[in-house]
């Protein structure tokens, strides 16, 4: 029994069973007509708690995401047997991945908002545990705590949004609360609260800073969290809730502005990184913003299509990054290069991944990005709730972002895989358990493009833009540029992280200690302040006591006075 428990394949089997069950459940839903606007029988929905029934229900779009999550989860689990199998805490790691997938399925598969909240919170907890998996390093601990705190702040938005939806529609069931056409109520409030929730979960501006700092986590986990599941849950939620706030120009404009800022910022940051993993993290932030832009343009379907495609190729890139790290021992760009010969599988699969990121035909990234761009272009014609000016700005920013994206994808490709190999490097191909998932994902990168819509005009424009970006970088490469740009503000990530790294922890700590001290010491401030300054001396020090009964009684009596005043004034 012990040896079975110790065996890695037990966890893979567990994940495989989960994936199989999810697939059996989800695949029939894929071909169903209609999208989220599925109109159910509106009767018979009551506030679901306290029964806490899961109320599982899949839409075609959610079925895709379930499949994506369990698929990537299974591949990550297989990959981890080789990557992390000898780690002493492998078992807890593997179990947390399973828990994570279950929570993700709960979020995507339920119609009960409270179950959704539970899954959402469990995902937050799991990501905290996984990012902090190597808690021996201070970096991992800090990154984990930061991710937890930031997403927690955002989770308040979700709690409030659920409460407002319950108040507005009288039920906490998504189907029961489905607003009929033109009858969405409290749309702006719900929209803004949902926005707060997803901005935190999906690391959008201004709560973006946790995602790059979560990179000390094991690389497979980064692939799972930052490609397929947790950050995707934010986009999914925004799309899923769109019917509640589709009428609200305010909420959609806010989302569009945030998406615009984030996509360009993330792409620019990705362009100057010297660390592959961190560059990929910023790239994720930027791509997620693209999906939000689609949602803001009232075409969530395009956003979710891109979510699936991006999930596949970004998982591929992260896992490939893991193979490289396995080979060279670090994720710094300076340590990589010349991988074609020693690591052919990694080289070719990652090339496909970068191509998809840059948006080259016929990868899935090309088709879904074009769908998003097409959605943005349609929005400029005033189809959605976005004002024409906002939509135009967003469209232009998205085009610039594709240019930068193509540029940084090329740069990363050149710096990691081509170029001269650093001296003394003895790279070798990763074991089969690691390269296998890469191949599967590479195939999937093409497979997902099957059946994707193709938009002629946009397709040509975006291909030209991508080619320009790629060509520019290739040209500079030919000219002998090192491709290491680091303008100071960009390299410092614009200093946007400062409020989080400095102020927030300090503030929390201060408040906590202040309350404890208040009971012990603070009351003493009054007598000390009252006494003449000269008399302070030793007597003043003697007054700074803890555990003084009289101080307690004073607090009590003063509290009663305050309460009586409140009672009299209010009544």
């Amino acid at each position, binding site marked *: 029994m012990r040896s079975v428990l110790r065996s890695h394949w037990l966890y893979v089997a567990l994940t495989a069973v989960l994936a199989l069950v999810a697939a059996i459940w989800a695949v029939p839903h894929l071909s169903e007509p209609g999208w989220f606007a599925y109109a159910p029988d509106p009767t018979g929905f009551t506030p679901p708690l306290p029964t806490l029934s899961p109320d599982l229900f899949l839409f075609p779009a959610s079925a895709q995401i379930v499949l994506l999550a369990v698929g990537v989860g299974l591949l990550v689990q297989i990959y981890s047997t080789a990557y992390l199998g000898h780690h002493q805490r492998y078992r807890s790691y593997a179990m947390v991945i399973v828990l994570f997938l279950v929570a993700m399925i709960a979020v995507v598969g339920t119609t009960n908002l409270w179950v959704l909240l539970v899954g959402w919170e469990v995902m937050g907890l799991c990501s905290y545990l996984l990012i902090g998996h190597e808690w021996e390093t201070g970096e991992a601990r800090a990154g984990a705590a930061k991710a937890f705190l930031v997403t927690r702040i955002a989770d308040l938005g979700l709690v409030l949004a659920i409460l407002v939806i319950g108040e507005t529609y009288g039920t906490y069931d998504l189907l029961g609360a489905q607003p009929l056409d033109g009858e969405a109520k409290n749309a702006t409030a719900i929209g803004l609260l949902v926005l707060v929730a997803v901005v935190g979960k999906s690391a959008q501006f201004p709560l973006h800073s946790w995602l790059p700092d979560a990179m000390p986590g094991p690389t497979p986990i980064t692939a799972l969290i930052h490609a397929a599941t947790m950050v995707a849950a934010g986009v999914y939620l925004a799309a899923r809730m769109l019917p509640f706030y589709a009428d609200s120009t305010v909420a959609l404009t806010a989302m569009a502005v945030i998406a615009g800022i984030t996509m360009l910022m993330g792409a620019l940051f990705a362009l100057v990184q010297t660390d592959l993993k961190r560059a990929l993290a910023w790239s994720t932030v930027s791509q997620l913003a693209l999906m939000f832009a689609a949602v803001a343009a009232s075409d969530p379907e395009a956003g979710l299509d891109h979510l699936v495609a991006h999930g596949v190729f970004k998982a591929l890139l992260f896992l490939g990054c893991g193979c490289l790290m396995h080979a060279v021992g670090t994720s710094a760009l300076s340590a990589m290069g010349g991988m074609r010969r020693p690591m052919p599988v990694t080289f070719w699969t990652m090339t496909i991944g970068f191509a998809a990121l840059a948006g080259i035909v016929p990868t899935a990234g090309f088709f879904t990005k074009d769908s998003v761009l097409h959605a943005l272009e349609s929005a400029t014609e005033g189809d959605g709730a976005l004002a024409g000016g906002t939509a135009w700005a967003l469209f232009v920013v998205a085009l610039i972002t594709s240019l930068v994206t193509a540029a940084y994808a090329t740069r990363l490709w050149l710096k990691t895989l081509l170029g001269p190999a650093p001296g003394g490097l003895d790279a070798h191909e990763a074991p089969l358990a690691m390269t296998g998932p890469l191949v599967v994902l590479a195939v999937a990168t093409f497979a997902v493009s099957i059946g994707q819509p193709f938009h002629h005009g946009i397709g040509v424009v975006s291909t030209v833009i991508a080619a320009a970006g790629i060509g520019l970088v290739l040209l500079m490469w030919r000219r002998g540029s090192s491709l290491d740009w680091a303008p100071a503000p960009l390299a410092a990530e614009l200093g946007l992280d400062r409020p989080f790294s400095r102020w927030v922890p300090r503030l929390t700590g201060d408040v906590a200690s202040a309350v404890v001290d208040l009971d012990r010491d603070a009351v003493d401030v009054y*007598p000390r302040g*009252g006494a003449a300054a000269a008399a302070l001396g030793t007597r003043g020090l003697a007054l700074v006591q803890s555990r003084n009964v009289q101080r307690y009684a*004073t607090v009590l*009596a003063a509290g009663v*006075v305050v309460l009586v005043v409140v009672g009299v004034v209010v009544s």
Partner: protein
Amino acid sequence: MSLTELVFLVLAVVAAGSALLSMTSGQLVHSALWLVVTLGAVAGCFVLMTAEFVAWVQVLVYVGSVVVLVIFALMLTRQTSATTAEVTGNRWIAAALGVVAAIGLGATMVAGFRGEDIEGRRIGTAGSIGQALFTDWVLPFEILSGVLLAALIGAIVISRSGSDR
């Protein structure tokens, strides 16, 4: 102003004044003795409000036993080192709270019960109180016996430190 009112006012002044002295006096034993005066004056007030039985209990329980107990405790815990001050540095905030409490309560009383008069009916004979106590208020009376027993046992066990066990 009737004689009763006059006597009551005198007693009230005595009670409040001695209470103030009791709470501010530097000599511990003086404090206890001033408290006896206060409690006696309050007992007098009870008599003026025709609550004779309560007044007697007040005198017996408080003046007769509680204060004696307190004086014993003061003697037992007399400290060898001379104490610097009999009030703590907390006294200004304490004084402020005391004044706020007194004025606030006084204002409440004035707002709620201005212009009412106590008729001089005899309400507090031992017979009528006993009747009420043993017919209407038996349950709390019985519970009270439990309170006294529990306090007694508690006091014994707490003061029996480091003895036979």
